[in-house]
Structures are given as structure tokens and as C-alpha cells.
């Protein structure tokens, strides 16, 4: 029985009048890969940011290995160091070389010496196949390479769980593969991950559970098999069909869309 890493308990969040999350609860066990997906505006990114408290939820709690992040007196910076995050737009530190992007957290947060941090950073870069580019600045790297450095930056901190916020959706199609491959590798190495993505191939290959978010609630959840063979809700079916048109069967692109597709 795997240990519980993260527990999201009845999380609510609104921006002014807009209720984004309406009571989300789920648990993540060690080594699990959870895939969150759903239409744009359904609150996926907000949910990830609520999990590491970059956006504190209005109501509800998040527990990391049993520790409530909302509790008074919790050092949220120290807790965040244990929750990695990979961003859609990479958000690399532009003034630092790839290796320093990875090591700065180790030095400033974990207090490692320069040499130790550098060595760990090189190891992390190795695991995302970016050793060769260690001395390059972010602006000298392609999107896919930048994202792999982003993943290395999260990995190097040896967090309990890593959150991926649409890691491939800002990439050119030919660069998506290298990033997904790295994510597959680290997933297989036993990293606990929560991934917001529309890459259904990735979800099918490694996810232990998929969660469909619609309008701030969990509309449907289940194994990849469940979603790809007989999803229950109409909304999920519709959404998967649209993804399929986009990424899958090309002949459908040539047909006129149903009126339903514009809803």
C-alpha cells in the first residue's frame, strides 16, 4: 500500500464574482501520476496554484504528507520547496545559465554549498538530457529545451510531488515529444506527479487516474481505460471527441462540424 502524499480537501476559489473552484477533493499516493484535464476556464491551473498556495484557496485545505498547508504557523516557503512546479511558459530565470537555474533553489532554499548544488544540478540536467546545454542561457535554448530545464529545476529539489501546468501547450509540435519523453521517464522512475495536460497519449501511457474538471467541479474521474472506452458524461465524450479531431483522425477535420461543436 503506497503512502498518501497529497490530499486536496474541498477546495473552493473565486476571483471576484467568478467562482472558479467549487469544492475539489482528491488524494494522491506515492508514485501516482494524476492527469487533470478539461475545457479551458475549468479551473485546472487555479487548482494547481491552490495546491502550492501560490493562490491561497478561499475554503478547504491541502495536506502534504498529513501537514495542513493552511495551518497557522506553517512555513509555506519550506512547504513549497517540497512541491515542485513546472509552468506552461517555463518561467526560467532569464539571467541565469541552465545549471544555475537548477542550482539556485538548492543554494538559496536548501542552503547547499556552491559545489554540492552544482553537482546535484548536473545530475538533474542529466536526467532531462540537458547536460550539453548546462552553460547556456534560457534565451539561447529552444522551447523544448527550456521546458526540460524547468523540469530539472523542479526535480533537483527532490520534492514530494511535482505539479505540471500544461507543460507542452506553449511548444511547437515538433518539440512536444522530447518533453513528453522526459516526463514519461521521470514518471516511470516513480516520481509523484499531478499533470494538467491535453496530451491523451501521455495520459494513457502513465496516468494512474484521470480527473476531468468541468466548471470548477470534478465531473468524472477514472482510469485511462475508463475514459478511452466508455466515459459516462456527455461533456467528457464531447471534449474527448474534440481533442480527437484536433490530434487524431484527420478526416474529421475536413467534415463540417456539428452545431454542437460550437457550443
Amino acid at each position, binding site marked *: 500500500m503506497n503512502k498518501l502524499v497529497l490530499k486536496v480537501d474541498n477546495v473552493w476559489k473565486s476571483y471576484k464574482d467568478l467562482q472558479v473552484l467549487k469544492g475539489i477533493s482528491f488524494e494522491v499516493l506515492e508514485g501516482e501520476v494524476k492527469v487533470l484535464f478539461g475545457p479551458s476556464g475549468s479551473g485546472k491551473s487555479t487548482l494547481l496554484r491552490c495546491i*502550492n498556495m*501560490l493562490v491561497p484557496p478561499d475554503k478547504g485545505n491541502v495536506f502534504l504528507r498529513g501537514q495542513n498547508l493552511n495551518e497557522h504557523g506553517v512555513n509555506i*516557503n*519550506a512547504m*513549497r*520547496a*517540497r*512541491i*515542485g*512546479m513546472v*509552468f506552461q*511558459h517555463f*518561467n*526560467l*530565470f*532569464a*539571467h541565469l545559465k541552465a545549471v544555475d537555474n537548477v542550482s*539556485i*533553489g538548492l543554494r*538559496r*532554499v*536548501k542552503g547547499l554549498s556552491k559545489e554540492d548544488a552544482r553537482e546535484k544540478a548536473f545530475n538533474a540536467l542529466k536526467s532531462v538530457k540537458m547536460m550539453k546545454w548546462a552553460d*547556456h*542561457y*534560457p*534565451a*539561447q535554448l529552444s522551447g523544448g529545451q527550456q521546458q526540460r530545464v*524547468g523540469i530539472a*529545476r*523542479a526535480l533537483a*529539489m527532490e520534492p514530494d510531488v511535482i505539479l505540471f501546468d500544461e507543460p507542452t501547450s506553449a511548444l511547437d509540435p515538433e518539440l512536444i515529444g522530447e518533453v513528453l519523453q522526459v516526463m514519461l521517464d521521470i514518471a516511470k522512475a516513480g516520481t509523484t506527479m499531478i499533470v494538467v495536460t491535453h496530451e491523451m497519449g501521455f495520459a494513457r501511457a502513465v496516468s494512474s487516474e484521470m480527473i476531468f474538471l468541468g466548471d470548477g467541479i470534478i465531473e468524472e474521474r477514472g482510469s485511462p481505460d475508463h475514459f478511452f472506452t466508455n466515459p459516462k458524461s456527455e461533456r467528457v465524450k464531447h471534449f474527448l471527441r474534440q481533442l480527437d479531431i484536433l490530434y487524431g483522425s484527420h478526416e474529421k477535420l475536413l467534415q463540417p462540424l456539428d452545431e454542437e461543436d460550437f457550443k
Partner: protein
Amino acid sequence: MIFQNIPEPIDELIRVLGYWDYIFSGFLITLWLYGCALILGFFLGLFLSIVRTYGNRFFSTIATAYIDIMRGTPLIAQLLLIYFLPYSLNIPISAWSFKANFVMFDKNITLILLDHKTMISILALSLNSGAYQAEYLRGSLMSVGSGQLLAAQSVGMSRLAGIRHIVLPQALRRVIPAWSNEAAYLPKYTVVVYFIGVSDLFSEGYYIVSRTFLTLATFIVIAIVFLILISIISKGLDILHEKTRIPGL
């Protein structure tokens, strides 16, 4: 001699340059006021811009109000206000001064580096320049974007550490071209200290005019001194900008 009589403009110039020790000491005082005000203003501006950009509503409003007031009123009014305030409040001013003395080509040069008037001048110039520098810095802080600060926080840095280690190193590089405006304006702003009797380059110019009545020649010389100073500053900042550029950007 090629010329029977030295042409008049050149003769005037030579007469003005005869007062080179006054011009030189005025130049040093201007440079001193400029350097102090630029550096003090920089730290004030850095503080204000961070408070305005990242502070909570209360502190951000205070910083904004300060910047608006300083940029919205004439520098000379600010200088005179600070200068006359102690007098109108009947606070006694003691006469004190910190001087530097040296001899150069048989001329004795005395610089009053710090006394009541000089201190007031530096204070007013710094407070004013800080407001302008704050806005240049705010622009560059915002241009770095919030994404990197989020990323810094997500690896466990505090907000302040993220600002210090991630945002500032980039903002300070990016600000140089815009900030060079302030670095080039400020030497010319320092001339307002003439009105409270500090012997800067401009005041010495007036002194030379009162002795020689050569208005045009004197102020042309002074203009050239400013021009050279500011050209050097501009070039220096261009080089600094080039040297600190982030590769690939």
C-alpha cells in the same frame, strides 16, 4: 605672431579660461552634488519602486503619493522649501563646514564639501531624483514579469528572496537605457543650488561674469564642460549596458 591683434572671441575665451580654478572647483562641486544625489536617489528610488510594485495597498499608495508630489512640483520649490523650513520654524542653524583644500598649479583651491547649504542641496536633489528613478525602476521591475517570481516561490524562495535574487538582477540590467536619462539630466538639475548660494559650476560662472562681463564666453565654456561630462556618462552607461547584457536576449 600670426595675428597682429588676437581676434576678440578668442581673447575673451582666454580671459575666461584665466579663471580656470573657479571653473574647476565649481565643476568638482557639481560632480560631488551629482554623485551624492544620484546614488542616494538610486537607493531611495529602488526602495520606492519595490514598495510601489510589490507592497500592499497602504504602502503602495504612500509610495505613489510621494512620487507624484515630487514629480509634480518644481525642483527649485522643493529646494527652497527645505532650505527655508528651519528658518520659518525658528530652528537655529549652526555654522559648520567640512572643507577640502589643495594646491594646483600655484592656485589654492578650496572646496566646501559639506555644510548646511550643501547638505540641503544634496537632500533636495536626492529626494527629487529618487522619485524619477523610482519610476524608471518600476517600469523595468514590471517588464521582468510575474512568472519568474512565481517560479522562484515555487522552488521555496520567499517573495522577498525572489525579488532580491531573481527579479532585481534582471530589472537592474534592463533599467540602464531608460535610467541613463536620469543620469544625464541630473548634472544639469544641480544648477538650482545657485539659488541658495552653493558654489557649483553655474554659480562660479556667474561669479566670472560679474568679474569680466563676458557673459557669452563664460557660459559657452560652462556649457562645454557639461557637454563633456554628460557625454562621458552616456558612453559609460552604454558600455555598462553592453557588458551586463544577458546572452541570447
